[in-house]
């Protein structure tokens, strides 16, 4: 029993950490694609982990069977949604600013004291 309880705590903790990472990433990352990446971590990893943690904590009931179905749908659908969003952005002409990053690196290298 204590193993299950520990496992549940572990899932909840990791899920919480991923939620927090996603939120920070959504606020702090520089452009659309990186922010989308951060948001998708929350959707496809943190939420299922939190639900698994709750299921382990409360024991297996009819409700947890429903929750497992929700997890399956989430795990399948949220990466797909992220993919569709990303594709739509790319088709809409929103290019990832790789150029700027290289430029930034070059600038940084130039700034470094020799």
């Amino acid at each position, binding site marked *: 029993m204590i193993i299950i309880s520990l496992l549940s705590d572990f899932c909840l903790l990791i899920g919480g950490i991923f939620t927090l990472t996603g939120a920070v990433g959504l606020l702090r990352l520089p452009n659309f694609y990186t922010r989308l990446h951060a948001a998708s971590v929350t959707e496809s990893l943190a939420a299922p982990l939190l639900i698994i943690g709750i299921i382990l904590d409360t024991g297996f009931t009819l409700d947890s069977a429903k929750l497992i179905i929700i997890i399956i*749908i989430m795990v*399948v*659908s949220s990466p*797909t949604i992220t*993919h*569709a969003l990303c*594709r739509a952005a790319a*088709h809409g002409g929103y290019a990832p600013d790789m150029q700027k990053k290289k430029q930034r690196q070059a600038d940084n290298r130039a700034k470094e004291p020799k």
Partner: protein
Amino acid sequence: MIENLHLLINVFLLAFLVLIVFAAINTNNLFVATMLFGIFSFVTALLFLDLDAVDVAFTEAAVGAGFTTVLMLSALRLTGAFENVKHRQSVLGLFIVVLTGAALIYGTADFPRMGDPNSAVHLNLAPEFIQLTQEKIDIPNVVTAVLASFRGYDTFGETVVVFSAGVAVLLLLGMGQVEPKKEPEQNVVLRIVVKPIIALILIFGLYVQFHGDFGAGGGFQAGVIFASAFILYSLVFGESYTRKVIPAAILPRLAALGVLIYGVTGLASLLFDKPFLDYNALSSNPVSGQHTGILLVEAGVGLAVFATVLLIFYSFSGVNHNE
């Protein structure tokens, strides 16, 4: 502890609503505003869920967040994504808004406290409905009993309103046509994932339709869910294929058929010398008569809503000939 938690959740959700409204007013990108209103609907659905109004929350999530957002996005394709900014500030407008807001806030002072057992709602009609549902209709979900039987007139009116909204859009925009070339590019990931999900959505729609007597759900929600499966199909696979499955021409007929089923169910009880929409007449046993009546009426509502929603989607997303 639980009380405080409830309060915390309510305050959080309501504050979120206010923030979303301010963000939606501030942006001049109409896509962003549409998405914000979708989020607004979802948060409202959560609030309803917190108030234990599961049926209302369900409708809000399906209609407000799902269908309205798709419609607004389709409409934006016709209008363009940015607002024409006019920096004209009207003092009169501000005055009217402040006055209306103050009047509304003043009005809330007369409200009974939330959950007050002595308020008028809880003293007169609600206990009667709860008791009569057990005695006369014998289904677990009181909301469905009230919606389909006790206030069948109102629901009939609502169904007619939905139908006439579809007819109005049809008159204004026409059915729209699909240019064969303008199909979305075939995307393998989306196609593979969406195929089984559409099947699940359709099954869920049927479940919501026929399980409305026992749990949350009913014709309105089921119609929207069923239509959303077709909308999803047309977004991913292309609208011309959807129009082969359900041609636009039969949709107005289906919507009219839904209203007709509702009306005929009402008229049938007139034949047996009972009032309009009194389902007791439909069977020798009044309780099973109520069950039959509710089933038929919900089927009519579901059909009308499904056909109207899909019709409006076709009208907005198709290429219009009378542009």
